[in-house]
C-alpha cells in the first residue's frame, strides 16, 4: 500500500465508497431513497414548486375535487391541497430534522460521559433517564407542550426532548461496549487525556449506532410532530402542516375525502420510506441489531 496518498486520491476514496454502498441497498431501499429525496425538494424552495399560495382563501373554489386545475383538490377554505402539501413538507420535515438534532445534541454528551466514566455520573444519568422514560411515547412531548404552550417551534423542542432519553440509552450502551476495547486501553496507556479518547476513539465508534437510531428517530419525530399537529397542539392554523391538514379534513370524510387522504398518505409514505431506509442502514452498519 502506498503510504502517501494525495489529497485527491483520498477524496476519491471516500466518494468511491458511496457507489458500492448504494448498490448494496435493496430495490425497496433505493425507491425509498428516491421518495425521501423528492419530498425533501420543497425544503429548499417551496415557492418554485407550489402552484398556489398555501394560505390563500378562495370562497369560490371550496371543496373542489382533484382536477387539472387543482391536482389534489381544495379544502373547505378553497386552499389548494397540493400547494399546502408542498409548504407542509417544509414544516413537517424541518420539525423532524430540528427535533432529531436536538435529541442528538442532548444525548451524545450525556451518553458518552455516562458510559465512559461509569460510577455515580452514570448511575444518576440512567436513573433520570428511567424516570423520564416513564412518560411513554408521545406523553413526554405532551408534558413539554403543556409547559411551553402549543406551536410549531415548541413542538420541535417537545419532540426533541421527548425522544432524547431513548437516544441517551443507545449512546451509553454503545459507549459501554467501546470503552472495554483494547485500543481504548492502549490510548490510555500512552497517556491520552479522557477528552481526546472520547472525541477521537469512542465517539467515531458510537456514531454508527447513532445514525441508525437517528434515522428511525426521524420517522418517529415526523409521526409525533404530525400527531401533535393533528391534536391542535403543534403548528397552528393557517400554517400548512401535514398533521394539521389531516385534522382539517376529518369532518368531510364522507364526501370530500381528498382533504385528509392526500396529507395522510404523504405522511405514511415518507415514514414508510424512512423506515425502509433505516432497516437497510441497520443491516449494513450494525448487523448486531438485526
Amino acid at each position, binding site marked *: 500500500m502506498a503510504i502517501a496518498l494525495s489529497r485527491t486520491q483520498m477524496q476519491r476514496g471516500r466518494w468511491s465508497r458511496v457507489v458500492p454502498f448504494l448498490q448494496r441497498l435493496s430495490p425497496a431501499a433505493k425507491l425509498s431513497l428516491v421518495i425521501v429525496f423528492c419530498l425533501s425538494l420543497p425544503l429548499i424552495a417551496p415557492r418554485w414548486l407550489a402552484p398556489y399560495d398555501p394560505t390563500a382563501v378562495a370562497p369560490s373554489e371550496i371543496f373542489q375535487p382533484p382536477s387539472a386545475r387543482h391536482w389534489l383538490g381544495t379544502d373547505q377554505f378553497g386552499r389548494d391541497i397540493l400547494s399546502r402539501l408542498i409548504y407542509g413538507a417544509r414544516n413537517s420535515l424541518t420539525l423532524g430534522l430540528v427535533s432529531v438534532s436536538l435529541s442528538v445534541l442532548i444525548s451524545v454528551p450525556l451518553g458518552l460521559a455516562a458510559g465512559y466514566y461509569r460510577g455515580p455520573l452514570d448511575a444518576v444519568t440512567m*436513573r*433520570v433517564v*428511567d*424516570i*423520564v422514560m*416513564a*412518560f*411513554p*411515547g*408521545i*406523553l413526554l412531548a*405532551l*408534558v413539554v*407542550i*403543556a*409547559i*411551553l404552550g*402549543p406551536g410549531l417551534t415548541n413542538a420541535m423542542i417537545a419532540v426533541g426532548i421527548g425522544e432524547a432519553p431513548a437516544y441517551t440509552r443507545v449512546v451509553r450502551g454503545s459507549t459501554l461496549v467501546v470503552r472495554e476495547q483494547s485500543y481504548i486501553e492502549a490510548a490510555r496507556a500512552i497517556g491520552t487525556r479522557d477528552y481526546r479518547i472520547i472525541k477521537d476513539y469512542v465517539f467515531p465508534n458510537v456514531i454508527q449506532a447513532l445514525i441508525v437510531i437517528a434515522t428511525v428517530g426521524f*420517522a418517529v419525530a415526523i*409521526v409525533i410532530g*404530525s*400527531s401533535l399537529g*393533528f*391534536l*391542535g*397542539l403543534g403548528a397552528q392554523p393557517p400554517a400548512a402542516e401535514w*398533521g394539521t391538514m*389531516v*385534522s382539517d379534513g*376529518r369532518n368531510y*370524510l*364522507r364526501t370530500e*375525502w381528498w382533504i*385528509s387522504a392526500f396529507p*395522510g398518505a404523504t*405522511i*405514511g409514505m415518507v*415514514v*414508510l420510506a424512512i*423506515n*425502509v431506509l433505516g432497516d437497510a442502514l441497520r443491516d449494513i452498519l450494525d448487523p448486531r441489531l*438485526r
Partner: protein
Amino acid sequence: MVRFILHRVLQSILVVFGVLVIVFLMVHLVPGDPAQVLFGDAPVPKAQVEEVRHALGLDQPLPFQLARYLHGAARGDLGRSLKTDRPVASDLARAIPSTAELAIAAMALAVAGGVFFGIVSASSRNTWLDSGVSILALLGISFPTFWTGLLLIWLFSVRLEWFPITGQHSLRHLVLPAVTLGWYAGAILARLVRSGMLEVLGQDYIRTAWAKGVTKRRILAWHALRNGLIPVITVASVQFGTLLGGAVVVETVFARDGVGRMLVLAILQKDFPEVQGAVLILALAYSFSNLLADLFYGFIDPRVRYG
C-alpha cells in the same frame, strides 16, 4: 429471587417518586408566575391572584409545596379543575375505565396478532405469506395512528357501515379504536416474534427434534415458541406504554372520553391540575406494567435475576 424483587420494586418506587416530582414541577416550569398561570390568560385583579397564591400555598418554599402535593396525591387529592372546579380525581375516575378498556383490548389484539403472524411468517420464511405479513407490519409501524384510524373509519364506518363512527357505549364501538391502536404494537411484536423464532429454529435442539421425527406443528408450538417468546414480554410491556401514549391520539380520533382526550382538552384549555392528573395516571400505569413485566421476566428467565 427475593433480592431481585426487592431491588426492582425499590427502583419502581424511585421512578414513581421522580414522576411525581416532574408532574409537580410542571406548573413551576411554565414561564411566568405559577399563580397567574393557574388563571390562564384571563385578566384577573392582582388581589385575587395573591389570594389564590396563598390558598394554594404557592407562596411557600418549593420543598414544602412538594411535600404538600405528595401528601395530597397519596390520599387521592389531585386538586380541582380550574375550569369546572370538579375534583381532578373524580374526572379521572370517570375517564379511566374508557382508557383501560381501550388499552387492554388493543394490547390483547396486539399480542394475539403479533404472536400469530410472527409464527406464520417465520414458519413460511421467504414466501408470499411472509412478505405479506412483513408489509402489513411495516405499514402498521409507519402509518401514524390518527391516519390509520381515519382510514378505518372511512372504510368500515362510512363506506361499509359495519361499525359506528364515534362513541363508546358498546363492544362495537371498541373494535375500530382497538384495531387502530393494536396494529402498531402488534406490528412491532410480529417482527420480533418472527426474528426470535427464526433464531431459535436454527438451534441444535430444534434440529434434534426434527431428527427424531417430531412434527412441524409440535416443533413450532412446543420447542420453538417457548424460547422465541421470551423477548416478547419485555417489548410487549414497552409497547403497552406506547399504546397508552397512542391512546391520547386514538381517543381524539374516535371521540372517546378517556384520560388521553381529557389530557389534550386540558392542555388546550391550560387547565393545569387536570393536565397533571392525566399525565400522572398514564405514567403510573406504564411504570406499574413495566414492573410486572420485569418481575414476570425474572420469574421465567433466571439469567435476569442474577444478571
